[in-house]
C-alpha cells in the first residue's frame, strides 16, 4: 500500500490527473448531446437564420407610383422604376389612394409626379417629384430614399443627354466601394456572426459544465482528491477549446462554401486569432462558473453578460462609431468587439496587419486577465 500512497514521481501523477480529467470530460461530451449541440448545431442554425433570413439590403421594395399627368417623360421615368431591381412599383391614380396604401403598409414609399412634371420645370432646376417614405424603420427608410434618388439621378442624366440639355448637376459623384463591392450585407454579417457564435460556445459551454458539476455534487468529490486547481481548470479548458475550434471550423466552412463570403486573408491567421478569442470566451465562462453554481443561473448569466453584449455591442450589426461616447467606451470591454473587427478584416480585406495586431493584442490582454482572475477565484473550498 505504501508505494501507492507515495508515487515516486510527482510529475507523473500530475500528468495522470490532467489526463484523467480530460478523458472524463471528453467522454461526457461524447455522451451528452447537449454540448455537441451547442458546439455544432447552434452555429449551423444561427448561420442559416442570419445568412438567409437577415439581410440589410433593400430589394423588391413595394412602392406606389402616382402620375397625375401622363406624358412621354413620365413614362420613361416610371419605367426606370419598373426596371430597377430594388423596387416593385404599383400605379395609383391619385395621391390619396397612395397615401392610404402607405398607411396600410401595402407600400413602403410613394413617388408622386405632379401635373407640372415636364421639360420646363426640369430645366428650371425645380423638383416636381414628391417622394414619401415610411420612416418607421429609419434604417430602411434611408436606404429606400437613397435608392429612389439613385433611380431619379440616373434617369435625369439619361434624359438630359437624350435632350441635349444640360441639367444643373453641381457635383458629380463617382463612387467606388472597397472590400465589399457588391455591398452584400451577408458578407459582413456572417464573419461577425461567427464571433457571436464563438462567444456563446466558449462562455455558455464552460459555465454550464462547471455548474453541472456543482449541481450533481461531483465538484465536492473532485476537490477532496489531490487534483490541483490548475488541473481542474485545464481539464475544462482543453476539451472545450478543441470543441470550440471544431465549431469555428464548421462556421468558417459554411461562410466560405455556403454563403460565398470571400476569405481574403489566410486560414492560419483566422485560426490563430480564433484560438486567442476562444481562450477569452472560455475564461469568461469559467469566471461565470465561479459565481453561478447551478446550470440555470450559469446559463442566464452567460447569455446576459456575454452573448447579448456580443450581439449588440460588438459592431457585428450596429456600428460602434455611431454609438454615444459612453456606450462606445463600454464596447471596449466586450471581447467580441475585437474579434468582429479581426474577422471582418481577415474575410473581406485580407491581412491588414495594424488592425489584426492591435485587436489581437486587446484579446491577449483580456484573455490573460480573465484566466488570472479565474485562477485566483477558484479555490478548493466550498465557500
Amino acid at each position, binding site marked *: 500500500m505504501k508505494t501507492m*500512497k507515495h508515487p515516486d514521481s510527482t510529475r507523473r501523477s500530475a500528468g495522470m490527473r490532467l489526463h484523467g480529467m480530460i478523458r472524463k470530460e471528453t467522454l461526457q461530451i461524447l455522451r451528452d448531446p447537449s454540448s455537441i449541440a451547442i458546439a455544432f448545431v447552434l452555429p449551423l442554425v444561427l448561420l442559416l437564420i442570419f445568412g438567409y433570413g437577415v439581410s440589410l439590403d433593400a430589394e423588391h421594395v413595394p412602392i406606389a407610383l402616382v402620375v397625375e399627368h401622363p406624358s412621354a417623360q413620365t413614362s420613361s421615368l416610371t419605367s426606370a422604376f419598373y426596371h430597377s431591381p430594388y423596387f416593385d412599383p404599383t400605379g395609383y391614380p391619385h395621391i390619396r389612394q397612395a397615401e392610404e396604401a402607405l398607411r396600410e403598409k401595402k407600400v413602403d414609399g410613394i413617388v408622386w409626379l405632379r401635373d407640372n412634371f415636364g421639360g420646363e420645370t426640369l430645366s428650371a432646376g425645380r423638383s416636381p417629384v414628391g417622394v414619401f417614405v415610411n420612416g418607421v424603420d429609419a434604417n430602411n427608410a434611408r436606404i429606400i430614399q437613397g435608392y429612389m434618388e439613385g433611380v431619379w439621378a440616373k434617369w435625369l442624366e439619361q434624359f438630359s443627354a437624350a435632350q441635349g440639355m444640360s441639367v444643373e448637376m453641381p457635383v458629380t459623384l463617382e463612387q467606388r466601394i472597397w472590400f465589399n463591392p457588391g455591398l452584400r450585407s451577408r458578407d459582413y454579417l456572417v464573419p461577425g456572426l461567427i464571433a457571436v457564435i464563438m462567444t456563446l460556445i466558449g462562455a455558455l459551454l464552460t459555465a454550464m459544465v462547471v455548474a453541472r458539476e456543482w449541481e450533481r455534487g461531483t465538484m465536492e468529490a473532485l476537490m477532496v*482528491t489531490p487534483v490541483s486547481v490548475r488541473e481542474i481548470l485545464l481539464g475544462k479548458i482543453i476539451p472545450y477549446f478543441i470543441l470550440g475550434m471544431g465549431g469555428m471550423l464548421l462556421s468558417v466552412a459554411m461562410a466560405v462554401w455556403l454563403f460565398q463570403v470571400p476569405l481574403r486573408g489566410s486560414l492560419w491567421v483566422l485560426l490563430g486569432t480564433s484560438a486567442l478569442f476562444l481562450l477569452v470566451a472560455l475564461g469568461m465562462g469559467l469566471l461565470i462558473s465561479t459565481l453561478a453554481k447551478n446550470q440555470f443561473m450559469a446559463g442566464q448569466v452567460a447569455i446576459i453578460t456575454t452573448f447579448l453584449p456580443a450581439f449588440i455591442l460588438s459592431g457585428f450589426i450596429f456600428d460602434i462609431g455611431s454609438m454615444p461616447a459612453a456606450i462606445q467606451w463600454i464596447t471596449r470591454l466586450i471581447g467580441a468587439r475585437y474579434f468582429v473587427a479581426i474577422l471582418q478584416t481577415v474575410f473581406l480585406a485580407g491581412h491588414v496587419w495594424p488592425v489584426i495586431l492591435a485587436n489581437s493584442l486587446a484579446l491577449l490582454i483580456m484573455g490573460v486577465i480573465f484566466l488570472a482572475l479565474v485562477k485566483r477565484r477558484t479555490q478548493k473550498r466550498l465557500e
Partner: protein
Amino acid sequence: MPSFPADSPSMEASLILEDVTKRFRSGGRIVHALDAFSARVRRGTVTGLIGPDGSGKTTLMRLIVGLLLPDHGRLTALGIDVIRNPLAVQESVGYMPQRFGLYEDLTVRENLDLYADLQGVLPEQRSARYSELMHMTGLARFTGRLAGDLSGGMKQKLGLACTLVRSPDLLLLDEPTVGVDPVSRRELWSIVYRLVEQEGMTVLLSTAYLDEAERCQEVILIHQGKPVGQGKPGDFSARLTGRTFHVTSPVVNKRTLQESLARAPGVIDAVIQGDGVRLVTAPGASPDPAVLLPGRSDIRVAPVFPRFEDSFVTLLKKDSENPSPVFGKPDRRPAAPTEEDVIVVQHVKRRFGSFYAVKDISFTVRRGEVFGLLGANGAGKSTTFRMLCGLLPASEGMLRVAGKDLRRAAAMARARIGYMAQRFSLYAGLSVLENLRFFSSVYGLRGGNQRKRLEWAMNEFQLGSMADVISGNLPLGYKQRLALAAALMHEPEILFLDEPTSGVDPLARREFWNRINALSVQGVTILVTTHFMEEAEYCDRLVIMADGEILSQGTPADMKERFRSAERPEPSLEDAFIGLMETRQPRELVS
C-alpha cells in the same frame, strides 16, 4: 490489527477536533453550524457521527477535509493541521460526500479510472485493486454499465469503491446509508468492517439513523452543532439498564395508551412500538402499572433491552426543560371506529415506457388507520402516492379514495385529502402566516371560516411567536409543524405524509407523531411513506415494497413475528425487511 487499550495515553488519535466553531449567514440570521465542537477519533476504529439533519454533520466532514475553514478551533487529521495544509490532508484522507460524487454518464470502470488517475494510483497497481474492490462491492458484473443506470444501493457502493481506489488511512463517509435499502445498508457495513480489519483504516461515518449507532465501535453524538456525548454505544445503552419497558394492553388502543403513558409520572419517553408502547423511565421510578396508570389493572409491563435511541432521547430531554408536547384538545369528536375502507387499491400498475414502477399492487386502508408504505428509494412508494393523490393516472387497476374513483373524480377526491410533501413544499419567501393563508385559500376557505382555521393552526402548532418569520429561515422542526398545519387547514379526512420525519431529530419526531396519533383517534385516515424503519413502527398496518411490488402486508408486530428465530429473539422491522428481500428469488440486483 493491534488493539489499543481504551484509555492508554499513548493511544493515537487519527482525528482531533478542538473547539471547532463554524457559523453561516442565512437570510440575515447567523446559524451556528458548529459550536465549540471537540472530539477525537481513535485510530483503527469505526466511529459514528450521529445526529439529525441540520445538526452539523456535513459541515464537520467538510471542515475535516479542508473544504471549509472554521471560524475558530483546530482540526488535526492524521497528524496534519487541516487549516494550514489542506492539500496534504486531501492526499491521505478518503471522503465520500453525501451524493457519492459519481459521474452518471460514465461507466463503472470509467469512474474508477478517473478517481485512480486523480488519486495517483499507478496503472500497474490498478488491476489488483480494482478486482479487490469489485469483489468487495459485488459490482464486477457491471463494470461496463453507466453509473446513472445503477440502483441506489449500487451507486453507493461504487461511490465507496471510487473513494477507496487508493487505500486511505482515514475514511470519511457522509451519510452513506441514507435512502438505500436495508440489504445494501447491511452490505455497506460489512465492507466498512472488512476495511478496518484488512487495511487498518480508521472510519468516521455520519448518519441520522439512530439504529446504526449500535453498529459502530464508538459514537459521537451531535445535536445543534454541539457534541452531546461520546463513547461506546453499549455504554450509552447500559446506563438505561432496568429502565426500559414494553407496555401492552389487551383492551386499550395503543395510541390512547401512549398518550396516557407519556403523561405518567417518572416517564421520560413513551413511543409506539409494534402492538404496544415502549417506555423509558426516570432513574428510580417504578414501572409498577399501579403507579404508571392508577386505576388500570389490565396493562402488562415487560422489561426490554435498552436501545441506542432510548439513551439519545434521554440525553436530549435532559437538556430541554419542556416536557414532551402533547397535542391539544381534539377539534372534532372522536369518530366511532368503523370498518369502512377509505382507500382501496386493486391490481394497480404504473408503467413508464417499458419500465413498471408499480407492478400489480393491492391494499385497503380503513378509516382512522395509520397505514405505512415502507421501502427504499426506487421501490415505487412515491409513484403509488402520486396515483393516490390523483396526480398520476394508473396504467391499470382501480383506485378509490374517500369513495371516489380517481379515474373519474380525481378533483373531488383531492378536496378531501391533505398532503404533506417530503421537503415540506412551503413557500420559502413567505412568512408563516402568509403560507397558512395561502394554503387555506387554495382549499377554498374564506372570511370568518378562514380566520377561525388560521387561529386554530397558530394555537395548536404553537406557531404564534413565529407568525411573521419567513418560512425559509425556520428551524427544521418548525418547518415540519407549519407544513402539517398547512395540510390540515381544510380539515381533510385523509392525510398523506411523504417521508414526514426523515432526518428530523428524535424529539421533533415524537412531537410530530403525537399529533398524528391524535388525528387518527379523531378518525382521520393517515397514509405514510417512509424508508425509515423506526417510523414504520408507528403504523397500525403497513406494506413493505421493493421494485414496485408489495413483499408483505400486515401489522408491524406480525411482520417481525414471522422472522423471530433462536438467533434473533427480538427481530426488528429491518430484520423482517431483509428477511423478505432474501426470500425473494432470484434477488434482482438492478432496479
